């Protein structure tokens, strides 16, 4: 039997603040090796297939960018929410609604053509995501309804709504009954960055720009200060004259808009039409990205690339080794666990204490607590 004891540091540790994602990544690799071992696969071989092969050629880097773009866009928005201590976990739904709103033009007005189409689609996508995110924000501010549960429930509703759209009113009449909309026209398709080298599109640029802008917002602007104050001590925020309700809307609308932009970018860029399922859980994986990036937009760029790689690696081991591509989800989950655990080291030192002689607790009994290890 042993016990962990936390000893508060006088100041947050700058060292662990930097190291924690790397320690977490290393621990994930170790745990992953054990997992592959249990599955009867040589871990070294598996890791080569998982982490190296998917990014060994230029076109594969483009695939990585395609996967990373929505993750980064969504996670950057979520980081603002989480910094404000507002728990939007419904980004998946906002992603879907962004995709649906943005697709209004190419699906319902396919004859509408010209350079305005794409900007309008992107704008509508952001509006759609923000509007869907406004629902939990409204319920939280008006009725103090828990936003975690409402935003999550709305994900299921959004998925079903999309399913209905592509099987019902928006189904391509010439699509042989397949549940999908018509293919978007060229004017409604997000251009590729370097068509000769690979498929990566402008969505990745949007992600980088959003990350830099939010980084400036959070670090240099009064609004970012407001987010951080209200998130870390709401009462001090109220004392400062910052309104919590306004902040709930700001955080939800911003993160909803970015998730919506990610949604329409994905549909217009990578997929080219609406389908019943347009996301392999980007909205949830982005939560991991946000934490792995330490809620820092620049860190999120790096974290987004790492998590994108777990998707590609999952596909790779599935085809090469016949392991379920769910292995990607497992890696992602473990990564988040280890990141959260390592973050403890930023504020605390951890002492591991053996409980050898504490069976009898009472007056006058000695409590021998041999110190085994102390992580400083």
């Amino acid at each position, binding site marked *: 039997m042993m016990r962990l004891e936390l000893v508060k540091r006088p100041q947050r540790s700058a060292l662990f603040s930097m190291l924690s994602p790397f320690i977490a990544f290393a621990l994930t690799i170790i745990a992953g090796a054990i997992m592959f071992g249990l599955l009867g696969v040589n871990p070294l071989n598996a890791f080569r297939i998982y982490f190296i092969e998917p990014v060994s050629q230029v076109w594969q880097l483009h695939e990585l960018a395609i996967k990373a773009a929505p993750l980064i866009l969504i996670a950057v928005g979520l980081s603002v929410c989480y910094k404000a201590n507002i728990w939007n976990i419904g980004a998946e739904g906002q992603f879907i609604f962004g995709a649906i709103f943005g697709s209004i033009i190419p699906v319902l007005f396919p004859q509408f053509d010209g350079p305005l189409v794409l900007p309008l689609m992107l704008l509508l996508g952001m509006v759609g995501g923000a509007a869907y995110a406004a629902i939990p924000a409204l319920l939280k501010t008006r009725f103090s309804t828990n936003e975690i549960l409402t935003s999550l429930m709305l994900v299921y509703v959004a998925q079903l709504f999309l399913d209905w759209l592509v099987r019902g009113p928006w189904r391509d009449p010439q699509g042989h009954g397949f549940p999908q909309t018509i293919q978007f026209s060229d004017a409604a398709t997000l251009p590729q960055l370097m068509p000769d080298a690979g498929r990566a599109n402008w969505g990745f640029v949007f992600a980088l720009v959003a990350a830099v802008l939010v980084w400036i917002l959070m670090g240099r602007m009064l609004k970012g200060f407001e987010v951080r104050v209200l998130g*870390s*001590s709401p009462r001090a925020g109220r*004392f400062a004259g910052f309104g919590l309700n306004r902040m709930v809307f700001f955080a939800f609308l911003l993160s909803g808009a970015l998730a919506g932009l990610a949604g329409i970018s994905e549909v217009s860029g990578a997929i080219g039409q609406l389908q019943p399922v347009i996301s392999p859980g980007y909205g949830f994986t982005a939560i991991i990205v946000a934490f792995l990036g330490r809620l820092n937009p620049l860190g999120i760029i790096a974290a987004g690339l790492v998590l994108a790689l777990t998707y590609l690696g999952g596909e790779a081991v599935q085809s090469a080794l016949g392991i379920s591509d769910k292995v990607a989800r497992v890696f992602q989950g473990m990564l988040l666990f280890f990141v959260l655990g390592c973050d403890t080291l930023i504020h605390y030192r951890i002492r591991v204490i053996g409980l050898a002689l504490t069976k009898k607790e009472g007056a006058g009994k000695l409590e021998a607590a041999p110190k085994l290890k102390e992580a400083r």
Partner: protein
Amino acid sequence: MGGTVSADHDGTNLLEVRGLTKIFGTLTACDHIDLNIAKGEIHALLGENGAGKSTLVKMLFGSLEPNAGEIFWNGQPVRITSPGAAKKLGIGMVFQHFSLFEALTAAENIALSLDDGSPISSIAAKARALSYSYGLPLDPESLVGDLSVGERQRIEIIRCLLQTPQLIILDEPTSVLTPQEADKLFETLERLRAEGKSILYISHRLEEVKRICDRATVLRHGKLVGHCNPREETAASLARMMVGNEVQAVVRAPVEGIETAAPLLEIRGLSRKPATPFSIPLKNISLNVRAGEVIGIAGVAGNGQGEFFESVSGEVQQQDAASVRIRGKDAGGLTITGRRLLGAAFVPEERLGHGAAPRMKLSENLLLSRHATDGKAFVGAGGMVKGAAVYAASQRIIEVMDVRKSAPDPEAAALSGGNLQKFIVGRELDRRPSVMVVNQPTWGVDAGAAAHIRQALIELSRSGSAVLVISQDLDELFEISDAIAVMHNGELSKPMPIAEATFEKVGLLMGGAEPGHAEHTMETA
């Protein structure tokens, strides 16, 4: 100084402590403390805020583990590993910040600290009987959240007595009582002493220590200063032992012609419904604070002071815009930012988490209350914060207020209570506000910083501002106020000019006596 360890009181010591030490990180909170408590004595543990009293007591009660030192109980060496172990030995504790559960009844609260399996109904009966026998009437079925602070303390005391302890530790028990309630408590303590029980009485109030304590142990900066008989000391000599040097007395020049000065803060018939099930409603409060004066608001904690502060500061707005007026303008409908822009400044009771964001730097905490009033100086085009200007201003305040710190721009939580409070008060003084409202200006602050803050508030008023101070510390209010009003159960008495005010009169009002104070009041309106 009475620096020698006096001989044993009479007979054996119940508790002996030798060389007890507790280290938190780099801070030695208790450094080789010795302490002897005889049977049947009331022993005072004296010291300023931050002297290490609470840490020492937590080690005696088993909630903290000492790094070094020995404890003897009836001459036998013991290790007190948990509060349960302390209780088994016969040590009971009445906490300063009550360890009660608001959502549970008094009887359930008591049951939780008794280890026997007796049913709650029988505990309730026992508690009721005991409470009446000690003159501390208590309804065991009432929900703690609905009770006043004084009633809560009764639960703590009854809970402690039901464990039939030999040593009772009381941590600053009178800080939440009216003078009259404190007298009642002293009677109870004397009766317990007569029954042969020992009491460790923690306080920084010298008069009451002189009055009821047989011996005293004095701590300063975590170190033992010495032991003495408080009855043979003067309040001044005890204060010297506690503080180490003379604390400069606060100078308050008398004000004249205040009746004609303009009221800068006017509160007219302010009422507020309780916001939460456990909060106090405000009832028709009226008060004027004029340029040049300091008005003090006395009252036992939890009588609506927090609600009053929120209403005046604008953290909570009023329906009636005229119920709060600042510099002649209706401010009831304004936010705290709007009221600041009219020239008002506010210092709340809680430093960490209300007046300051604990995990943010001091410079960021400057921006907290001044991002709007000093918008041009601190915030540039497009909402970009001018970091250099904010930093320079925060350094200026740090220098003026003599804030001691370990880094150039540390996090607020890294400062001691006194230094952080100096920064928070300095942050507002730096604006030269015409109205200043302060809730508990020196709560938990060391004597040097407290004197500094009090003097600064008086000087602000004498330079033509209106200063309103809410405090539970009567000594403080008598030191700095030109008139004192009393808040009780959400109602505010008329201010009493300081020349006419006495502890007794104010104490009666704090206890809720009918405001028969009309003859003492100055006609301010």
